[in-house]
């Protein structure tokens, strides 16, 4: 790294206040509803080139003809898409002089998670690009990254500064017509992150983004595009915290990853959208399309810890197009109270000798429903494809549900596919054993859940793993007793 630790610290000290969180920002919000004029207005506000406006409009036209999918194992009141405001941007870029001025509720959440801004200052190895509301407020470490030719910025900025890259790759992994939510996102996406790692470059730090919904009644439509050029490597972290809210909020993000020949992308998420209260009111609806494309000898790993959202609909997938490419999916999904999660992955084997691994850990408590849905598809050309899937469910109490829906489609006889599934319950005997050793029930559950999730937690970068463990504990607080 070009920087010494001291220099990094100094830079952070001067940068930190640029990415505070604010609740009282005057927002520049468009009227509710969605039509071509709104799509054009969004594009205009963002001063986008015409090709982008056209691209959005085409997506909108596709979306208008589509129906909301109903196949997932979730029940909810459908959002009224005409009752949502599709654009909201903070119109000031505020600067604070001290942490005292930052939203205390947010600080509390960070504190609980052990990632207070105070601590973030010290996280010298992590570049942070916080997306607040719809416009990205600040990017740090740009200089260090720029020296390596790495681009890490908001997608809006990328559309302005690197149109050739955006134009070449956007929508190539998740086409606009892919599904209802992807089409919607393509039409109205507000902002998100963009990352490009040049040929042969190993990104020297974990790239990290924090997302947060900040404006009542505005849905969030994030768009992320990560391109790892030939022989490059990047570890990308996406995490989010959201303050409590009464109203349902729609979140429909699209993430596209492109790993060119011999490249590797590690994408880790800790997701903690507001799950609704104990009675099942409120909470975020999270309908996400995440997909990665693997060229020859490349590798994409998705690691996710899902604890939030009232409804989660999310299937990070890999298209293993290139020969010898590798796709991995490691997931922990926790549901409590009335949460519903339908999550899993798709591994599409197109190239020869492609390999995929799926480790899914579902933890259900309260009256929640937790479904794993996975597809392993081996095409006729994919000689010697291999997949290993393991889906474990842990139940707490008698009112929750765990469901596993594995789909396997093979068109090539040489494929080797293994699937293992287990369901277990946290036993009273386990709890009593812990109690007897002086560990109270809450802590005992945290310990058992962490043990259950260990294979996935181990895949997370260090700081993230600690945060994820705490998140698991917080999510299951009060779930027994």
């Amino acid at each position, binding site marked *: 790294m070009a920087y010494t630790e001291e220099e990094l610290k100094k830079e952070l000290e001067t940068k930190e206040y640029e990415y505070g969180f604010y609740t009282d920002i005057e927002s520049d919000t468009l009227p509710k509803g969605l039509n071509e004029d709104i799509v054009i207005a969004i594009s205009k506000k963002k001063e986008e080139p015409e090709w982008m406006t056209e691209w959005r409009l085409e997506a909108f036209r596709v979306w208008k003809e589509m129906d909301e999918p109903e196949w997932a194992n979730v029940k909810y009141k459908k959002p009224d898409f005409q009752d949502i405001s599709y654009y909201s941007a903070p119109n000031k870029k505020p600067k604070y002089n001290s942490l005292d001025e930052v939203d205390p509720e947010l600080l509390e959440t960070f504190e609980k998670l052990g990632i207070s801004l105070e601590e973030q200052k010290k996280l010298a190895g992590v570049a942070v690009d916080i997306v607040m509301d719809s416009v990205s407020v600040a990017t740090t470490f740009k200089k260090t990254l720029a020296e390596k030719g790495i681009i890490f910025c908001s997608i809006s900025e990328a559309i302005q500064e690197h149109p050739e890259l955006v134009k070449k790759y956007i929508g190539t992994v998740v086409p606009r017509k892919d599904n209802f939510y992807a089409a919607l996102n393509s039409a109205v996406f507000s902002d998100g992150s963009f990352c490009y790692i040049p040929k042969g470059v190993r990104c020297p730090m974990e790239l990290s983004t924090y997302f947060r919904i900040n404006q009542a009644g505005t849905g969030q439509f994030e768009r992320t595009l990560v391109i790892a050029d030939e022989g490059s490597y990047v570890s990308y972290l996406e995490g989010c915290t959201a303050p409590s809210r009464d109203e349902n909020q729609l979140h429909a993000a699209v993430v596209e990853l492109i790993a060119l020949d011999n490249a590797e992308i590690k994408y880790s998420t800790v997701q903690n959208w507001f799950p609704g209260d104990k009675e099942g009111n409120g909470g975020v609806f999270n309908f996400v399309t995440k997909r990665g494309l693997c060229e020859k000898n490349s590798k994409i790993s998705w690691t996710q810890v899902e604890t939030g959202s009232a409804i989660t609909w999310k299937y990070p997938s890999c298209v293993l197009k290139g020969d010898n490419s590798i796709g991995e999916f490691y997931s922990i999904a926790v549901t409590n109270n009335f949460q519903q999660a339908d999550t899993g992955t798709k591994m599409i084997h197109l190239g020869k000798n492609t390999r995929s691994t799926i480790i899914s850990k579902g933890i259900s408590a309260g009256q929640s429903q937790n479904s794993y849905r996975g597809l392993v598809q081996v095409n006729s050309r994919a000689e010697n494809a291999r997949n290993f899937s393991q889906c474990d469910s842990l139940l707490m109490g008698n009112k929750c549900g765990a469901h596993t829906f594995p789909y396997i489609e093979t068109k090539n006889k040489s494929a080797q596919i293994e699937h293992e599934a287990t369901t277990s319950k946290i036993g009273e005997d386990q709890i*009593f054993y*812990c109690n*007897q*050793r002086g*560990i*109270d029930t809450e802590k005992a559950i945290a310990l058992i859940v*962490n043990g259950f999730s260990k294979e996935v937690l181990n895949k997370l970068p260090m700081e993230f793993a600690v945060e994820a463990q705490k998140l698991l504990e917080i999510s299951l607080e009060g779930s027994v007793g």
Partner: protein
Amino acid sequence: MLQIKDLHASVEDKKILKGINLEVNAGEVHAIMGPNGSGKSTLAAVIAGKEEFEIKKGNITLEGEDLEELAPEERAHQGIFMSFQYPVEIPGVSVTNFIKTAINESRKARGLEDMPANQMLKLIREKAELLEIDRKFLSRSLNEGFSGGEKKRNEIFQMAMMEPKLAILDETDSGLDIDALRIVANGVNKLRGKDNAIIVITHYQRLLEYIVPDYVHVLHDGKIVKSGNKELALELEDKGYDWIKQEAVL
């Protein structure tokens, strides 16, 4: 230290303990023997606070404090340790992580900071050595795939780590071969001191050759039907439990 008075306990209206009286003082080792199903494990679990069992009558005090209102973890914080007859598995949680959590939670309850990592490591090393436990063993998932003997040795390892005031060992000898028995007994004897007390629950006299008790009690059908010194264990071994059963009927 421990005082049990006229203790009656039931599970789902089934009477299991039917009037137990027992006094254990600091520095003593008591053995409780008795046929299968006589209520030995139940007695241990009731002292440890397993909620499944309901105390119908009588009481238990530890150093004068009534235990009834205390949760199992609070009893543990007071210094009660029970070595389980059937230790449970906790997948993904290593022996080290588990014992570290147990020790720090007990320290927290006493208002102490977490034990510093180097001190913890030193303690683990020392106790593992005492019980001839391999370092690799400590990073395995708690009790998962352990042999019967390994489970019991691990229980005593935890006991050695936690240095309880009152240790209750429920059939710790079962599943142990003679070498392991000697090692485990040695671990238990190291705990013996003027401030500690130990209750050894066993079926067989064998263990008592290594952990020599001050008193032996015979439990039958939820009651202590005979108490004596270590000779009683030998007599039992000789005559079998039928002898006690007959005496109990008389």
